[in-house]
């Protein structure tokens, strides 16, 4: 009986013949915390009477959720992280460096076949490059950085076979929103997702990250893809680490196999206030919009900025509409500057802010007002998510956001794409 990618990675890291539903203690290749979770992790680390992390090179802390600090209390948390990082000699990324899930793969910290935990639920992002990565809480992170290990329940796997070709103006964001709408917010709870098929093979690595990033929005523990030539080339460009990609066996056992043809998919939007409340753009077009946001660990990469800028180039956003753009890292921001994308955004009327998570998670940099509608490239639209529980958040692709801020209402981006 064959194994899934999840079973193979957890077998190799626990040195056991691990099968779905077994509980294993496994070795961690990399661990990460951000400024919303590291404070509690450091507190737990101290309470556990630990002195040193297991391996400084395998630990990172990132200040991205409130960066730069908008409040005194947050500044104190940041200071605590800086002190811990200095004392322990771990990898540390300060304000302006970027969003943790952009930095971890971009800086070459993770490679195919790795087992990774992060104290942030969107740690599943690295599944796109064949990494078993999953979100944990602060106490799990503390135990992980002390011992280099964590216990895992080996997940069953749900396999998505995505056939066909996405049409013009339809992106990986639309695809993952559609899948979440189809299987719902808890359709893959406790399970790993594997994404495969021609539609995945056709995507760039950046576009694949968007899909794995949102695996958690269907409840999944990780969102895995096999490594193909594109993956291997991308990883070699970003990391010097040795690696061995992990493939699922042909006779692996899946909890469920779901097949889709993506060819006729139109742009999708998640409506307030849950991510699985998904509709095609045609069903919601015309809804007035006061704010747009392009950024986040889901869609703040260079390709996303290119897609948004292409639509906005030479145009102005609608009156009484705002656009916020947050590149996902310093590198992405520099590249966008070199390509003239930042100039396009600023000229169109956008406010470009520091690489980070602020607007998405409602800490600062764009909290909407009561009763306002927002179209965002983020991964969550829960009530209160952007910092105001009386605002309404819609989720879509960077193209849908760009088109919608030009008209001041939810708009099919294909109207603007030649």
């Amino acid at each position: 009986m064959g194994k899934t990618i999840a079973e193979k990675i957890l077998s190799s890291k626990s040195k056991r013949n691990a099968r779905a539903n077994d509980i294993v203690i496994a070795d961690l290749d990399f661990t990460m915390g951000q400024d919303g979770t590291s404070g509690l992790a450091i507190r737990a680390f101290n309470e556990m009477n630990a002195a040193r992390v297991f391996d400084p090179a395998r630990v990172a802390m990132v200040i991205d959720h409130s960066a730069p600090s908008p409040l005194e209390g947050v500044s104190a948390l940041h200071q605590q992280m800086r002190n811990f990082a200095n004392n322990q000699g771990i990898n540390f990324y300060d304000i302006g460096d970027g969003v943790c899930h952009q930095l971890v793969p971009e800086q070459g910290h993770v490679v195919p076949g790795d087992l990774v935990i992060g104290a942030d639920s969107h740690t599943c992002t690295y599944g796109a490059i064949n990494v078993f990565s999953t979100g944990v809480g602060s106490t799990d992170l503390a135990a992980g950085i002390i011992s280099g290990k964590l216990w895992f329940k080996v997940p069953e796997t749900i396999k998505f076979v995505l056939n066909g070709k996405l049409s013009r103006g339809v992106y990986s964001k639309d695809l993952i929103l559609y899948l979440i709408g189809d299987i719902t917010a808890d359709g893959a709870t406790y399970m790993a997702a594997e994404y495969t098929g021609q539609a995945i093979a056709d995507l760039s690595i950046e576009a694949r990250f968007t899909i794995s990033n949102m695996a958690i929005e269907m409840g999944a523990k990780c969102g895995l893809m096999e490594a193909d030539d594109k993956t291997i080339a991308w990883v070699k460009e970003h990391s010097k680490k040795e690696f061995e990609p992990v493939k699922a066996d042909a006779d692996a056992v899946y909890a469920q196999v779901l097949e889709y043809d993506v060819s006729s998919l139109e742009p999708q939007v998640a409506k307030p206030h849950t991510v699985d409340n998904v509709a095609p753009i045609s069903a919601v077009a015309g809804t007035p919009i006061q704010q747009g946001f392009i950024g986040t660990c889901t869609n703040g990469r260079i390709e996303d900025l290119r897609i948004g800028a292409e639509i906005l180039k030479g145009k102005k956003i609608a009156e009484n509409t705002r656009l916020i753009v947050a590149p996902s890292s310093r590198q992405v921001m520099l590249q966008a500057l070199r390509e003239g994308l930042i100039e396009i955004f600023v000229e169109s009327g956008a406010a470009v802010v520091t690489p980070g998570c602020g607007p998405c998670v409602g800490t600062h940099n764009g909290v909407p007002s009561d009763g306002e509608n927002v179209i965002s490239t983020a991964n969550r639209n829960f009530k209160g998510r952007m910092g105001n529980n009386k605002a309404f958040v819609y989720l879509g692709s960077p193209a849908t956001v760009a088109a919608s801020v030009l008209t001041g209402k939810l708009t099919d981006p294909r109207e603007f794409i030649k």
Partner: protein
Amino acid sequence: MSLTGKVHKFGDDVNTDYIISGRYKFKTLDMRELAKHVMEDLDPEFYSHVTKGDFIVAGKNFGCGSSREQAPLAIINADISAVIAKSFARIFYRNCINTGLPLVECDTDQIDPGDELEVNLKEGILYNKTKGLEIPITPLPPVMLKILSEGGLVEHFKKYGTFNLD
């Protein structure tokens, strides 16, 4: 350990932003302070209506969303003794075990707001005293029961310095 209290009932998919909003969790590590805002976006009066030992009871997928451990910690510090739901999101589930917040998976359709419950985790029994009804619960796997019964993962590491679960 036997827990007794009254029920505060919620629906399906209660996410971590509802449990404790991002606009509070970044402000402080003072959990008693955060606890005052627990469930605020679903029920602004929630905190003031809790008596020590009460239960949060919900539908499926409780705790979905972010990995914030402030969610179980805020619930603990609001003096809730356990969360009872049809199912839990997995990161929240781990965080409850690790922070020592008991959770119970069972059918919650026959539990109404204000009902008095008695829960015995070791024996695996949930008794609805108001309705005179015993409800079967899904037992916790031994690894999780061990961490929970030791008071959470911090206590486990204090005791052993690493994982000692075999």
